[in-house]
């Protein structure tokens, strides 16, 4: 089962890429599993400002499905 993971702003800079496809069969299909996998792989520390969207929606934390798009978002800075 594959999901697309996207990184933005300071996080994309730290990760070194803006997007990747991850196979959840090795990581686990739980939202928390994927989050921890990415944080540890790229040594991102969540200082409380990190927000994660599933299919462009924040605060879901639901089990992931094939084709989901998970986005790691640093603090917003529009305007």
């Amino acid at each position, binding site marked *: 089962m594959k999901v697309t993971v*996207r990184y*933005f*702003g*300071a996080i994309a*800079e730290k990760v070194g890429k803006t997007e990747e496809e991850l196979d959840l069969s090795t990581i686990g299909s739980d939202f928390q599993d994927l989050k921890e996998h990415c944080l540890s792989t790229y040594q991102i520390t969540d200082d409380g*400002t990190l927000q994660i*969207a599933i299919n*462009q*929606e924040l605060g879901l934390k639901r089990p992931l499905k094939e084709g989901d798009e998970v*986005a790691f*978002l*640093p*603090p*917003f*800075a*529009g*305007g």
Partner: protein
Amino acid sequence: MSEKKKPKKVFQQGPISPEKIATSIANHQSKTNIGAHSIFLGQVRADEIDGKTVQAIDYSAYEEMAEKEFYNIREAAFEKFDLTCMHIYHSLGPVKAGEICLFVFTSSANRKAATDACSYLVEEIKAKVPIFGKEVFEDETHQWKVNI
């Protein structure tokens, strides 16, 4: 109210020109039920941070999500305020210090709806829309902007 449902393009590449603002204002002169316009402009500041000066902010966004958030914010504003028109434009890519990166424009029969809606939109955009800003210093180093 037909305007309400029309999806609008918010993002544009580079700074927002004063001429674009003038054109947008001029386009409303045929709407003679409007009595008040409120406009907010965000301009990039040449902040000095640890002895280095910001020369530009390079904006990026999670565009698909941002467009959804802009849509929701617009809908909520039309619900809350008695508006005739509402326009939002935001820059992507580099915007130099002194240039404009955000243009929010609300119009109504009366001033209170226009000004309240304009402030509401600016706060909502800053809080809810996934836009990211890289503050680029004169020596090409950078730091990431955080809204306060």
